[in-house]
């Protein structure tokens, strides 16, 4: 009999023993040590045990009878302390010495505990074994738990405890969950499903300290100062191979115990298997490769030739109701291409990554029925040229299948508001259609939907088409990433409360992974205009001018235009501008058509510095690059002009100060003239004010660019204060409703002056609009130059210089 000593009765050594006993029954005398006080069980299934779907008895792999039948001497609850490779013995922590011919190490991994202050408090645990699981099972209704880590383990722990009624919060450091296996879109859907289960999910969150009370955990503190009270804190942030015994024995250890293709360590009589090993630089954390290793271990022990070959891996999450699958490679590669399918009505997302006519990666959420088929395509490196067009639909559709362009509308819940003007929900419209209103006119007459500003017309038409089976009228979609128009996207963002870019992509069925240069800036504007407090402006979805707060020139330099409120300046400001022009070698200084001074030809790297200089002289960004408030052009008014009726300069300055920083669908220019002679050209601006003896005439929809338009009269009001309110309200209606890149005159032609005037004249509506405008300004009325010069200056410099590296 050959003597085999096994350290660790885990899933890997358990499988190795099965193969060994199959190949050479009765030829091995095995001593099996395990630190846990039990034999081999299905660790993977701890999650169903936690959630109550299974009991521990159901997941035992090897019971006492099995060990006895194979003559295994079990030393459970006993840790191996050391190995004497010269004497070929192991010593347990209780002092027993056992001799071996061959030694197999399968000590698994240790959970990584973040060394936060307080990590050693009672009630701070990992998720690895039955003891941990039992601690978590004690968390029922009324108990509060925080889980650090939004990966596979953390989410299974969270879902298991939530199923028992505990109040669970997951803290994740990355912006989306399971970022190693999922992309943003799948991460978004997963988060949504977990939130529906009552779990609180906080992404991009950093923990700083664990607070205790009498030696027991009391709360987790985040870096923003939030304290999350908890009775139990579970850390599931990763694992480290358990190499303690191997290291002490003097075996070659890198990140794990180093083994060759035959699973032999640096000592010919010592083998290792499982999560504790490092093979060809790689570590392992899923059972599929461990089982392959176990087979090789048995072959090596019985003197046969076998080699471990790592294969493609796939991941699933064992949380009921969260069907996800991820496999293969999403990193790097020549000529890769994505195919994306989203079905918002079923909450389905599929993405395939192709490379040279092969599938190299797949992510799926919601419907993973075909995952095995896709995984096989990846593993077999199948040439998919012939089925490329329909590949994404899965095996059932080979030869047919098509995405449904009306899926987004079909997916809407009945209470989703379609017509914002008249507060008409989808359910009401569907009822009207079922009641016989089969065209737009009928629906309008019955429900008033789309009868006011008309921007929801497209959606109503799609609903009619979806209900009656008629063809929806051809429309101009935003871009190739979607079949929806701008107006439809805007309405759906509001009615479905979509507050992030991935939410829009998924719920509205975007056909690409992350949009394109046409839709991303539009979505960024819609989201920030509708949800100023919830949505974080995304610089990467902005055109370069807005991302860098300067206009790019054809030679790659930039122009810098400081604000000159109402066109009024001072000798000090002029001196500061002159100094900056000298200091940064500005080739051209020009007076603009907007009553201010443009410094043209500034190098990108110099931008933060020149801004800092101008800031110090009291000047701020003029937003000359923005789809937002540009200038308020004024004339001299009553201050100096013998015809002036009101203080047009003062009003212009007041307007510019309160409006600056606001983002709008297109650029927004204002003019204030002191009398109808109109020296400020107010009647060809987006919004113009002409002062008269009796007050202020506000008109809108002018332009003097590619189209020259005179403004249309909107309203006359008696005071400066009311003028400002009216203008804020107009800007807000425009911000909330217009299509991205429509200036006021274009939008006005679509919704009609009567509708706009009705909003402004209604005092409640006007007040509500002004309030929403101010809410948004509480976030956006600031000087981006100051912020960028202080905190982002680094981004304006090259990331590195290779010329220097090479010289060093």
């Amino acid at each position, binding site marked *: 009999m050959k003597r085999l000593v096994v350290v660790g009765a885990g899933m890997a050594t358990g499988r190795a023993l099965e193969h060994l006993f199959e190949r050479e029954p009765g030829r091995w005398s095995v001593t099996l040590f395990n630190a846990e006080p039990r034999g081999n069980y299905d660790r993977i299934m701890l999650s169903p045990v936690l959630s109550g779907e299974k009991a521990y008895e159901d997941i035992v792999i090897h019971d006492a009878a099995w060990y006895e039948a194979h003559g295994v001497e079990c030393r459970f609850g006993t840790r191996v302390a050391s190995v004497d490779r010269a004497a070929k013995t192991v010593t347990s922590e209780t002092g027993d010495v056992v001799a071996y011919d061959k030694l197999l190490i399968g000590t698994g991994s240790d959970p990584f505990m973040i060394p936060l202050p307080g990590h050693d408090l009672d009630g701070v645990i990992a998720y690895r074994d039955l003891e941990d699981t039992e601690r978590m099972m004690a968390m029922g209704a009324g108990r509060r738990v925080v889980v650090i880590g939004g990966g596979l383990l953390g989410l299974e722990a969270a879902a298991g405890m939530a199923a028992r009624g505990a109040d669970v919060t997951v803290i994740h450091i990355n912006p989306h969950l399971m970022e190693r296996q999922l*992309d943003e879109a799948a991460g978004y859907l997963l988060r949504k499903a977990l939130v529906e289960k009552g779990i609180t999910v906080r992404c991009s969150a950093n923990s700083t300290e664990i607070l205790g009370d009498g030696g027991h955990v009391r709360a987790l503190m985040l870096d923003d100062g939030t304290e999350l009270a908890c009775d139990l804190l579970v850390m599931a942030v990763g694992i480290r191979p358990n190499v303690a015994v191997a290291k002490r024995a003097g075996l070659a250890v890198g990140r794990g115990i180093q083994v060759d293709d035959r699973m032999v360590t640096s000592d010919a009589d010592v083998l290792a298997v499982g999560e504790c090993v490092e093979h060809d630089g790689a570590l392992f954390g899923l059972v599929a490769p461990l089982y392959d290793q176990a087979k090789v271990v048995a072959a090596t022990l019985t003197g046969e030739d076998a080699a471990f070959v790592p294969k493609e891996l796939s991941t699933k999450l064992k949380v009921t109701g969260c069907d996800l699958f991820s496999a293969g490679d999403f990193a790097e590669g020549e000529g890769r291409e994505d195919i994306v399918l989203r079905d918002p009505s079923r909450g389905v997302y599929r993405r395939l990554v192709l490379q040279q006519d092969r599938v190299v990666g797949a992510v799926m959420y919601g419907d993973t029925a075909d995952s095995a088929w896709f995984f096989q395509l990846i593993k077999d490196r199948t040439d998919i040229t012939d089925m490329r067009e329909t590949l994404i639909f899965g095996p059932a559709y080979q030869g047919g299948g098509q995405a449904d362009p009306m899926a987004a509308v079909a997916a809407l819940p009945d209470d989703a508001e379609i017509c914002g003007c008249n507060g008409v929900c989808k359910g009401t419209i569907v009822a009207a259609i079922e009641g016989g209103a089969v065209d737009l006119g009928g629906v309008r007459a019955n429900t008033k939907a789309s009868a006011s500003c008309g921007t929801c017309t497209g959606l109503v038409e799609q609903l009619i088409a979806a209900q009656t089976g008629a063809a929806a009228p051809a429309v101009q979609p935003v871009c190739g990433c979607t079949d929806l128009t701008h107006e439809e996207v805007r309405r759906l963002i509001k009615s479905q409360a979509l507050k992030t870019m991935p939410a829009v992509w998924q719920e509205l069925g975007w056909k690409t992974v992350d949009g394109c*240069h046409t839709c991303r800036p539009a979505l960024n504007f819609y989201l920030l205009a509708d949800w100023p407090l919830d949505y974080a402006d995304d*610089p990467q979805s902005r055109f370069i001018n807005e991302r860098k707060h300067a206009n790019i020139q054809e030679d790659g330099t930039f122009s810098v235009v400081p604000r000159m409120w109402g066109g009024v300046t001072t000798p000090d400001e002029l001196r500061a501008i002159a100094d900056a022009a000298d200091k940064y070698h500005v080739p051209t200084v020009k007076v603009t058509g907007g009553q201010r001074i443009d410094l043209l030809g500034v190098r990108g790297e110099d931008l933060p510095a020149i801004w800092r200089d101008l800031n110090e002289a009291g000047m701020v960004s003029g937003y000359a690059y923005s789809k937002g408030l540009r200038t308020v052009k004024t004339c001299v008014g009553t201050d100096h002009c013998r015809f002036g009726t009101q203080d047009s300069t003062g009003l212009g300055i007041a307007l510019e100060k309160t409006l600056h920083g606001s983002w709008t669908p297109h650029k927004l220019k204002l003019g204030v003239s002191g009398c109808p002679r109109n020296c400020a050209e107010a009647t060809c601006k987006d919004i113009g004010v002409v002062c008269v003896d009796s007050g202020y005439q506000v008109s809108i929809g002018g332009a003097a660019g590619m189209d020259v338009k005179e403004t249309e009269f909107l309203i006359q009001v008696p005071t400066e204060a009311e003028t400002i309110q009216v203008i804020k309200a107009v800007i807000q209606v425009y911000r909330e409703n217009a299509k991205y890149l429509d200036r006021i005159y274009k939008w006005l032609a679509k919704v009609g002056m009567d509708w706009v005037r009705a909003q402004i004249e209604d005092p409640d509506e006007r007040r509500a609009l002004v309030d929403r405008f101010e809410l948004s300004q509480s976030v956006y009325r600031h000087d981006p130059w100051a912020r960028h010069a202080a905190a982002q200056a680094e981004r304006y410099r090259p990331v*590195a210089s*290779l010329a220097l590296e*090479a010289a060093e």
Partner: protein
Amino acid sequence: MNWIDIAALDEIPARGARKLTTAQGCVAVFRTGGDDVYALDDRCPHKGGPLSEGIVHGQSVTCPLHNWVFDLNTGRAMGADEGTVPTYPCRVEGGRILIDASRLARASAA
């Protein structure tokens, strides 16, 4: 291959780019939404636009000057436009961005 460590992945925003200066001009280093990295000459073949300032989407970038779109893998213009931007092997390892500088260094040594 001559892999040089140029920066931490985090120094480039996701769906963004930064310039890398080299002896033979600027190279744009891109990071996609999926955290892949690519390096291309920072010069659009159309009229020299700085590609590092473009909008990054999927595995492409749109030139900020006239909206030509380039495949970051191959450097080729997509759609109807024609032109190719030289690319340089580039990868992420342990959170750091490495670029193959053999072609760049050769020129700078000369």
